[in-house]
């Protein structure tokens, strides 16, 4: 097994673990973690494909992964902001129900 094969396999396994988390794990925050883990898996496959032991690595996958990391954090931030707004609306609703 060469280095890039190890990490290719690791990347796909990460994708699978993340998929499991997204579908099976009930908590929303962990679902968001799961999406991020899936992303890391894809990135790892990309970088491993561009890895060139002993020579110059392919910079195009590196650039793609840099783009992907920024897109992932943007998606995570939007998801978390929605989660916070939902959680607070629900809490307010629960408070109003409990008050009278």
């Amino acid at each position: 097994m060469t280095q890039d094969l190890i990490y290719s396999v690791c990347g796909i396994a990460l994708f699978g673990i993340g998929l499991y988390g997204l579908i099976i794990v009930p908590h929303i925050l962990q679902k968001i973690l799961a999406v991020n883990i899936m992303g890391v898996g894809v990135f790892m496959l990309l970088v491993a494909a561009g890895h060139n032991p002993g020579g110059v690595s392919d910079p195009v996958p590196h650039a793609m992964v840099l783009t992907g990391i920024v897109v992932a954090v943007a998606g995570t931030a939007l998801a978390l902001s929605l989660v916070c707004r939902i959680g607070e609306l629900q809490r307010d609703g629960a408070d109003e129900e409990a008050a009278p």
Partner: protein
Amino acid sequence: MNGLQLQTLLPWLVALPLLAAVATVLLQRLWLCRWLSVALSAAQLALALTVLLLLPEQSDSAARRYALGGWGAPLGIDLYIDGFAALLLATTAAVGFLLSIYSGAYFNEADKAARFWPLWWLLMVALNGIFLAADAFNIYVTLEILGLSAVALVALQGSLPALQAALRYLLVGLLGSLCYLLGVALLYRAYGTLDLAQLALQAQAEPLSWAALGLITVGLLLKTALLPLHFWLPPAHSSAPAPVSAALSGLVVKASFYLLARFWLETLDTAATAGGLQMLGALGAAAVLLGSLQAIRARRLKLLVAYSTVAQLGYLFLLFPLAAPLAAGPGIAGAALDAVAYFIIAHACAKAAMFLAAGNIQRAAGHDDIERLQGIARRLPLSLLAFGVAGASLIGLPPSGGFIAKWLLLDTAIDSGQWWWAAVAIGGGLLAAVYVFRVLNLAFAGSSSTADALRMRRLRLPKTLSVSAFALALMTVLLGFNALWVLDLLDIGAPLSYLAGETP
């Protein structure tokens, strides 16, 4: 002077909405944002129509390609246009123009309007970017802009159901993008390029490209909401603000369908199997029937319209078995694409009109509970007329774009010897008639209850809202009268270049 070059216009289709987005972030005055957006939407429409009219002169595929940065594939990113893409660009610009006019009158809260315009323009960036894309990773980035801006637009509604629908939409969208990106990573690993045309030349029928096509398909099906993966669409599309619902149902889901058609029939057609094509068709047929049944059972008007989208999207997937290069000759494949392209355009106008009409009803009545809409036609004649005309197009009654589309589809299905798809189209039309007439019956018959009437008298609907909904419905009728013109454009522009027998 060598006239107007088609190529040089292509980047402006992305740059114009990008600059509009920046301008609407910077402008403080909302009326300025509103009128600037309407003006720029008109400019975008003019641009898209110019591209559409110039296209027939460019039969050479190199003349329809624009190398950004001058590098050219595979190092750089290209933009590429053909007849299919140009028609979708024009549809987006036309529907977007009317929706801009509507939105200007619809959003009357300062905060919502201030967020709406930049997000709206970024949505346009993504749509135009996808239709022009010729690079697999570039498609990923545009899909993310599309997904995130669509989610943010749904969340504008601010209510708890809307936020929950938006969150689910977001997670599904991210899952779809990541499946797509994994497929692209496999393709890059196998072929060392991201350019769609080069991938089409190099792709072999081998396990790696099958896996890539499978992942890309699952990712895009999630975003297109084909039947077993449609669960997120009805809540998201029915709880968004009306113009957003119209854009999501009319335009956004079509973008991922467009990519599916590209990957299956062009880029990875060597990896596409007959079984896969038939299965996509079968799922589409199931979506037509089950989506329509759900629409018939819906209690809320906007939910009905959203389920109708699930059903109508099903028709599009009949493209795959009908255009299957193995089963049909190029003539039938071209006819199938004609039919589906017509379907997309007709549905974009009709569904946008329907959602705007439903939004008008919701705003005027204060609710969209179908049972309580008795006699609402007396209050909102123009909106209900728009709903009815759009509904006729969904059913496939003449004279409407939907009629032509369905007729073309029936014709192709019978020509290709696959009559069962024709049965699906007819059955779907009958079911559509049930849910459309269920609403119209209630709305035109009976008198509204006094409480509702009182509430409605206080809430006057701006004229712009009903007029723009009606204008969209009128477009579906115009599409019914001008079918030949539209089809000629589609044919001349060499839709999906493989059909014209050229190497992309």
